[in-house]
Structures are given as C-alpha cells and as structure tokens.
C-alpha cells in the first residue's frame, strides 16, 4: 500500500482539525470495500468453525452437559476460563483507544478503531462463553425479569452489556467524528464513559470470583485491580499483535513509534501484573497458614505448569519490550503472544485453582456426577488437575473464539476502521 505514514509521532486523528469531511467519507467508502481473498477466506473459515461450535453447543444442550468434563465439585470449566480471558482481551483495545482521548493526550491514531473493534469482538465472545456455559439458555430472559441486583453475575451481565453497547457507540462515534458528525467533546465524553466502563467490567468480572468467601483461591481484595492489570496486559498484547498483522496485510499503518509506545506500555502492564501476583502470593504465604495450600498448589502442585508458564511468558514479554534492541516487529509479536498466553495461564490457574482446593476435603461417597476424575475416588480426582476439558468443550470454545474472530474480520472488511489519512 502506498499510504504509509512515515511521520514521527502520529497525532491522534481527533486532534487533527484540518481533516476534510470529504476525505473521511472516502476513507469510509474505501474501508468498506477493503479486503482481499485472504480476508474472505478468513471470514468463511471462522464462520464455519463458529457454525460447528453452534452445532456442538446444541448437542451439549440436548445430550446434556454431562458430555462436558464439568461436575459438581468442579462446576465451571473451560467456558468460564475463556469468559474471564476474553473479558480481559476486550479491555486493551478500548482502553488504549480511549485513554488518550479521555485525557486529551497523544494516542495511537492509526489503530484506534481497530483496537475498539477487537474489544467488541472479544466482548461478544466473552458473552457467548457465558451463554454456552448456561444450563438453561432459554431462560436468559429471566435475567431481566427477575434480576437479583445483588448478584455479581448480574452486575457483570449489566456491565458487559453496557460495555458492548458503549464500545459500539464509541466506534460509531469515532467514525462519525471522522465524518464530522460527532463533536470532539461528545467523543471525549463517550471515551471517558467507555473507559470507566472498561475498568468496571474487569472489576466486576473479578468480583464474580473475588467476592466469594467460599473459595480460598479467589477471595482476595486484590482480584479486581489485578483483573484490570491482567486485562491491560492481554488487551495491549492483542492490539499490538493484531495491528502488526493488519499492518503487514496493509490494512493499517502501524508505525514504529506506536509499536514502541505499546511495547513500553505492555512491559509496564506485565510488570504491574507480576507485582500484583507477587503481592498476592506473599499475602497468601506469609501467615504460613491456609494460604500456603494455594501457594503450594501453584508453585509445585497440579497447577505448576500454568504458574511457571505464566511467569516465564511474562518474563519473555517484559524483556522483549524493555530492551530497545529487541523491539523488532516480529519479536514484539512474540512478546504480545507471550503476554496473552501468560494471562490465559493465569485464568486457568484462577478457575481450576478455585475448585482444586476444597473446604470440606473429607472422604465421602463419589458418583460420576461428583467430580471429573470420579473413577479414581476423591483423592485420585484431586491428584492432578481436578478439571480438564472434554472434547465437546474444546469444540464449543473453538466455535466461540471463531465467532469473535469472524466478528472482528467482518469489522475489518465492512467497517471504516482504517485511519482516515490517505
């Protein structure tokens, strides 16, 4: 593509009063028409996988969730793990896009809308993960009819819904702003609201777990800020990786400067996240009491691969992002992917860890409905990871991920997400 911006320091497009309305329209029109065969194939493939996922989901509903690996003592699994993960992924785009606008500072002009689009896709996927986890999805309407406003899950549903709508509005506002139909002030207000909502969405998701006094692993005040930081890690990683990809595909310009800035941000977020992790582990371990169980489970127990995986991946990401000579685009993509996988590891630790430690670990009757590895008795079931997904869960989860990808790609194909500069 010819429209390579080689200027140093991209000015956020909102701060470019000189932009001509005509050019914006042109940009919109062109964006709608963008995309080659590769994108079409991408959309087709993701649509197909999503469709397979839906079929599997219907199978899960008709044949029963007994086909999943979830059981009474580990009643959530891959779906809720992925829900947490995708809520996190949804953060980065919106925050990266809205922070500069909200605070009126220089941002990442060229990637702002793509970033928000990634948020929208991730949010849809997150919501879909909740839906596929429900036993009675046809009763979803009850959420509105019988809302228990005291339930963190209800909060999350409200905030997630709001967040999704706001993300769309925000994207729309940016496009309209480019067309001159929405004022900067309005856009700025929307961005502030979106930012607050983004922080809330992570906090509330954290509270689904963190407010539960019943589970040692989850019950910590740190969980909400930690979720925000984790969201920033994987969100930033996602934006960095996606933009690098789109830049390579020629869809957007992803300047060196933006890359470096995002890399630095990613490094900071990773370090903050690790810092929180350190704080939490210390708090758990220091009294040398019940919390030691959590530390032991993570560092040397069944969840150790995910714990050390997270640590190593975070370290890799941080080193790449912090050492200037390593900040090449490919390595930054590596760092981003590492950061994303690190947070996925975190999510697995969090979810499985919540079930791995039981409050009443007394021997009792065990039936196939009790726990995933019931055949080897309660003790056997907890020797390794108490939960590991069943094939149908992998399939449904893949379908949901494909749905997110499809939405994103559709956005790329049909929405004016490219920067307006020509």
């Amino acid at each position, binding site marked *: 593509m010819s429209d390579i911006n080689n200027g140093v320091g991209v000015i956020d497009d909102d701060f470019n009063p000189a932009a001509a309305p005509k050019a914006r329209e042109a940009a919109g029109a062109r964006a709608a028409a963008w995309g080659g065969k590769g994108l079409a194939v991408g959309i087709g493939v993701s649509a197909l996988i999503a469709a397979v996922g839906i079929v599997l989901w219907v199978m899960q509903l008709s044949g029963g969730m007994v086909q999943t690996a979830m059981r009474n003592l580990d009643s959530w699994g891959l779906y809720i793990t992925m829900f947490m993960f995708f809520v996190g992924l949804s953060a980065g785009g919106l925050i990266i896009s809205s922070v500069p606008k909200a605070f009126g500072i220089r941002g990442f002009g060229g990637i702002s809308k793509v970033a928000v689009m990634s948020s929208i896709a991730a949010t849809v996927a997150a919501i879909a993960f909740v839906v596929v986890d429900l036993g009675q999805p046809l009763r979803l309407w009850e959420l509105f009819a019988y809302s228990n406003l005291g339930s963190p899950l209800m909060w999350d549903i409200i905030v997630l819904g709001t967040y999704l709508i706001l993300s769309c509005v925000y994207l729309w506002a940016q496009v309209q702003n480019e067309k001159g139909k929405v004022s900067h002030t309005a856009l700025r207000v929307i961005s502030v609201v979106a930012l607050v909502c983004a922080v809330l969405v992570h906090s509330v998701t954290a509270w689904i777990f963190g407010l539960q006094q019943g589970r040692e692993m989850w019950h910590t005040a740190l969980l909400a800020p930690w979720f925000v930081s984790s969201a920033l890690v994987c969100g930033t990683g996602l934006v960095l990786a996606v933009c690098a990809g789109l830049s390579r595909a020629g869809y957007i310009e992803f300047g060196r400067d933006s890359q470096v800035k995002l890399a630095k941000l990613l490094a900071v977020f990773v370090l903050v996240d690790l810092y929180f992790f350190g704080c939490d582990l210390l708090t758990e371990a220091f009294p040398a009491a019940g919390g030691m169980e959590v530390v032991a489970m993570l560092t040397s127990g069944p969840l150790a691969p995910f714990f050390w995986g997270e640590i190593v991946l975070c370290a890799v990401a941080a080193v790449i992002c912090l050492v200037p000579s390593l900040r090449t685009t490919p390595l930054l993509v590596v760092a981003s992917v590492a950061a994303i996988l690190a947070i996925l590891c975190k999510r697995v630790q969090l979810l499985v860890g919540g079930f791995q430690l039981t409050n009443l670990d007394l021997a009792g*009757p065990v*039936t196939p409905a009790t726990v995933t590895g019931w055949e080897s*008795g309660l003790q056997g079931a907890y020797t390794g990871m108490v939960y590991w997904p069943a094939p149908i869960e992998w399939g449904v989860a893949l379908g949901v991920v494909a749905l997110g990808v499809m939405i994103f790609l559709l956005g790329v194909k049909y929405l004016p997400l490219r920067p307006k500069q020509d």
Partner: protein
Amino acid sequence: MSEMNVPQRGISRRSFLKATGALAGAAAVAGAATPSLTALAAEDGAAGAGGEVVGYGVCRSNCMQSCRYKAHVRDGKLVKLTPAEYGEDLYRGSCLRGMSYQHRIYSPERIKYPMRRVEGTERGAGEWERISWDEAISDIASHFQAIIDEYGPKAIAFDFGTGNYGEIQGQTGIFNRLGGMLGVSKPAGMNDLSTGYGIDRVLGTGLMYFANEAKSVLDSSHIFIWGSNPVHSTPQNWRWMQRAKEQGTKIITIDPVKSATAHKSDEYFAIKPTTDGYLALAMANYIIENGLQDDDFIAKRSTAAFLVRDDTGMLLHKSAFEAVAEGEDDPVFVWDEAAGAAALHGSAASPALEGRFEVQGIPVTTSYTLLKERLADYTVADAARVCGMDEDDIVYLARELAGAKAASVNISFGMDHYYNGYQSCWAIAILLALTGQVGRDGAGFTGIFLNTALALNTKGLWAAKGFKGMATTFPMTMLHEVVETQQLNGQPYPMKALVSIISNSVSNWPAQNNYLNKIIPNLDFILAMDMEMTDTARHADIVLPTASFYENEDFRKAHNLPYIVHQDKVIEPLYEAKDDVEIAGLIGRALGLADAFPESATFDTYANALLKSEACEKANVTLERLRAEGYIDLTVLPGKPGIVGRAKFPTKSGLAQLYTETPAPRVSYGQDVKARFAKEHLVYYQESAEVSENSEAAKKFPIVFYQEHSRWRTHSQWFNSPLLKELDPKPVFKISAADAAERGIASGDVVEVFNDRGHMVVECVIDPSLPAGVSRMPKGWQRDQFIEGGYQELTYPVHDEWSVAFNFYDTRVDVRKK
C-alpha cells in the same frame, strides 16, 4: 427428644385395618390369596391424597434386628419405606438396607420368570431360557420323583438359608413342611452356633437364647463389647448402648481390630485374634486369686458346690447310692459342712464350695475346686504373652469386670467364627458366673435377644399325615464330601439334588471351591429360588422367582425385640414371582402331596396352624390380632427388660454350671468325641486351627483374614442394590499399614489375596484399624463383582468336632500386588 409427631397421610391406620380385616376374611372364604393393599385401597376407595396407601411390615433379614416399616404404596408401587413405631420408641429402628428394600424389589436385575439352564450349557455359564411356571413345576417334580424313586428322598438336600425370617415364608416356614413330608436330607446348620454352644455349657441357654434384651444395657454400669461390632452389625442395639453411655455407662471394647465400635467406646483393648478365651480364663484366675469373685452368686446361683466323682468325672448323684426311677429327679450331692457329710443339693444350709471329700468310699471334689484348679493354669503373665496385651491391662479389665455394679458383655458372633469359638465364649460365660455378672438387671450377655415367651406350634406348620421329617444326619461342611463320594462315614449316602431355599450357599458357605468343584458338578439337579441372581442361583438348573418381603403376608416372632410383628402384603408379586406358600404348594401337589398341601390352603391356613399353641392362646396371639394391631408385645415382666436367668438359669439345676457333667457335641454325625470327652467337663483354652500363631498355616500365610459384617449388606443380601452400590460400589480388601508397606502396596492398588485353597483379586485400601498381620473385607459380594475369584474361596471346610460350626474367620492368607 426424638419423639415423632408426624401426621399420617393417606388413609388412616384405622380405616386401613378395617379394610384388611374385612378383606382377609373374604379372601379366606373365597380361598384366594390375600389381595394386596393396592387392590384393597382401590376397592375401598380409601386411598388418601396422592393415592398413597400405608401398610406395615417387618424387615426379615438376617441382621436379626427386626425393624418395622411403614410401606408407602402409590399407583400400586412401593415408593417408600419409613420406620414404624413399636411400643417402645427406642425400638423403632431402620437402616440403609431396610429403607431401600424397594431397590431390590424393583431392581432391573430381579429374577422375573422361572428360568431353566439352556440344555447343553455348563452350570453357571449364564445361559437361560424362560419357561412357564407349569413347565418349571413339572420339570422339578419329575426330577425329584426320579431321584426319590431311584435313591430315596434323602438323596435330595434342602438347604435353608437365612434370607427371610418370616415364620411362614421364611427359614422355619412352609418349605420345612415340604421337606418333612418328602423326608429329604437337611444338612445341619452351622452358622453362628459356637457362641450359643459355648455359653450353653454354663447357662443352659441352648444355641441362641443367651442374650438379654437390648434395652437391658441401660442398667449396666459397664458394657464389655467383646469381639463384636454392633455399630455396624447391630446398630439398633448400639442405639441402646449409646444411650447407656450417655447415662454414664463405661463401654470397653476388646477386639483384635479397632472396630467402628471400638472407635465409639470409652476404652479399647487390642488382643491377638482368637486368644479371647485365654484372656477370659486369666481374668477369672486373677479374680479368684485376689478374692474379687462374687461369693454370694457362686454359692447361691452356681453349681460350685456340686460334687464331682474323681473316678468317673460325673457328678455324684442320688442314683449312685439308691435306685432312682426313670423320669424321676436324680439330685446331686453337695458337701454339708455343718454335718461333715454329703447331702443332696437343696438340703444343706451351707454346702462347701471347695474341697475334696470322700462319700461312701467315692472320692469327690467340688465343681468350684476343680474349676479353680483348671483356672490356675492360666496366669496373667502367660495371658499377656498369648494375647499380646499388657499385664496391667488384663488386671485392669479383671478388676473393672469384678467390681462393676452390673456388667454386660455384647458378644454376638465374632469369636464364634473361629475353630475355638465355643471355648472362648464358654470361658467368658464362666468369667461372668464367677463375678456374678449374669442373670440380673444390666448383667449378662447381649447380642441377639430371642424371645422365649412364645412357643409357636411348629409341628402344626411342618407336619401333616405321613410326615417323615428331614434327615439332619451330617453338617453342612460335609456336604461336598457326601456329594463327591456319595457316602457318609463310609456308608452309601446317595446325594443327587440340592434345593436352595432363601439361601445363597455358594457365597456363604466356607471353602467356595469345594462347593463349585465338588458339589455343583456332581449333582443331578439343582433348584434355586431367589429374587436375584446370586452365586447359588447362577449355578442352578432351574431358578424360580420368589416374592419379596412386601409381596406376601407374614409375621416374625421378632429377633432382638419383645414383639411378634405382622407383615402386610402391600403389593402384588412383581412379574411372575410367587411366594413360598404358593411355590411349596405347587411342588407338593405335583409330587402327590395334595393332602399336606391342599389347593384350598392359603397363608391363613398355615399361619393359623402355627399360631395354634398354648403359648399363643395365653398371650392372645392370633392372626386377626396381628393384622389389626401390627405387633403384639410379648414382654414377660411388664416394664422390665428380658434377662436370661433372672429367676433361674435354664440348666437342669437352674444354676450356672461351673462343671459340665455330660458334654455333648452340637451335632452328632458319627464323629469320634471320646478323645476330648474328659477335657470337656471344665473350661479350657484351645488354640484356633489356623489363625493361631502356632498353626502350620501361620508358617506359610502371615496374614489373618476375616469377613467384615459391614452396613452395606446382610451376608450376601443387598449385594446388587443399585442404590447401595452408589455408596459402596465395589469390593475392597483392607490391609494393615505394616503388611502393605512390607509388600509395597498402596491404597487403590489391585492385589491378589491367596492361600492354598483359593484366591481373590481385588482393590485394596490401607486400614489403620488393623494391626499388623490382620486383614479383612466387607462380605457379601458375589463372584462376578470381583476382578478374579472371591473371598469365600479362602475359607476352610473343616470344623471342630464338638461345636460343629462354620469357622469363616479362622483363615490365613498372604497378599501380593498384582
């Protein structure tokens, strides 16, 4: 605190009873079987809300606890069983088996139709063809007739098990009439009889009547739980013991393993398996040496003063000096100290308890002196070594027992199941007699209380014109020899057919491989009647489906309780199942016994015959009253628990016997008992045959193995309950930590447990209740539930020739990791 105030739903008890009475009368007239409650309700229009009818029944399983249940029937199906009241609230009992009996009734595995082994297939191969009842009965009759014609009726063995204690449909019920009319063989029973046989030497209580009523423990200051585990095996009795404990009674458990009961007791003393008799004798010796015995009891209520002739070992009777007419009392001499001469018992004010005397040239010694001399052989120091206990503990136990205000001993059938079981129980009975801990409130044995108050007219049920009786000429342990050799004691004894009546002998007799390899293949015909495909039914030629507890009417002279209890027929037999009354009638008539089994005879006919006795008349026990009231209280002394020997012991003299004048083997089948006759007068210790550390088997097989009576099954009943299998899904062998470590075995490993007789391959668990060298597993599992083999392969088929009992626990094994 636990009084119930539960309003009954459905039809009221009163209206239900009226309905039963009326219809039962009608049925008797019509000569038909009693209609089920469902039918009643339908006709009566009496079904209440939800169409739920409540009938009553009594669990007739061989745990001997006799819990009474309310049966809730909806749409013709027994949907729920709940504990029903007895006069005494703490006798209201229940357990997980009784509560879930409908899971046996409606189990998909229930035997539904008469079935015949497919021609040409092996016994036990599992190939069956469904046949009609007509075909089954004519097939059975022709087999029986052919055998009777060729070999005589004794060539058919009736094997009565313990799956049903109903008086008509159960172990002592209608099939005894069939067997007795035909004159078949009935191998002499050998289950749980050593305890009673041993105690009988002292208390004269026969084989089963040694125990006080369960609630008597409320009067005990001490409860010694000796080799039994009531928490698992008789929880309804444990309820009373727990109450006693709450009132301050001290509970002391003596057991080789730290049983569930030991864990609930105040004190626990571990003892080497099968050395209990030694411990009891050493305690008795210590008590006497230290003057802790109950002299008053010994003088007034025991035969201490009875003079024993040194020359013959017999008591010195009046007949030694003058003629005593046949049937006339022949009293025993004691030594009248005041007169310095022998006097007939009862005529001397203070007979000598101890001493050697001469009566008209016959040297005599008092029973007590002989006993003391015998006991002197058993010192505390030796006992400590033999029993693996501390001397201090033995002394403590002796002092606690002797000093107790009232001590009871819960005994049941733990020690019973060893070769030396009767000597152990005999020794404890002697110990109780010397300490006066028997025959009064709170003192004596507890276990399974049997009501002596109501003698039923068994003859009326069993016998009709032409009654031959069943031949009990050899014990069960010898059946495999008889079948294999067709001889008994060297004489021809043709044995061609076996009939399994509420019994699962393949599973529940020791030495399973003998059963499988010597009995099964050598018989012409095997008939089994059951609800489920037990190990025995699997090996039969014809299997008949029988009715469950709730599919027929019956009553039980309750074991363990002072009641006689009625069972309503609450549902019709499922599928093609029939009750024993009907089956026995069909077979009987097919064999030409129409006089003994007339078509018109129903349950009522037999029930009324059985209840036609003087005792029933006196207690006003009638079928009508049982139907109307559900149960009848048979308490002898109102407000007082039944106590063995409260007034006098059921011995010839009415006294506790310290010396057994004429010991007799429990069953005489031609064995030689001369060798030990002289020894059997006075209690002594005999080592167990295999478990003893000094046995030959001990050299080869280091681990003792016993079958645990768990809460999951009663013997092999409930072996296949789909409900209970959710809680207790598979056989598990329990091994001590030390034995497991030595063999590199961990919990969850599959192990092979073996000895020279057989093996089983099964999952194992390390059980800290077990000392090194002792293993166990909950019994009742059938062969197909094991990975290989079965636990009953491990047990041996021999018996002590005096007690003639099964010795299931007298078994040694070794274990290896698979």
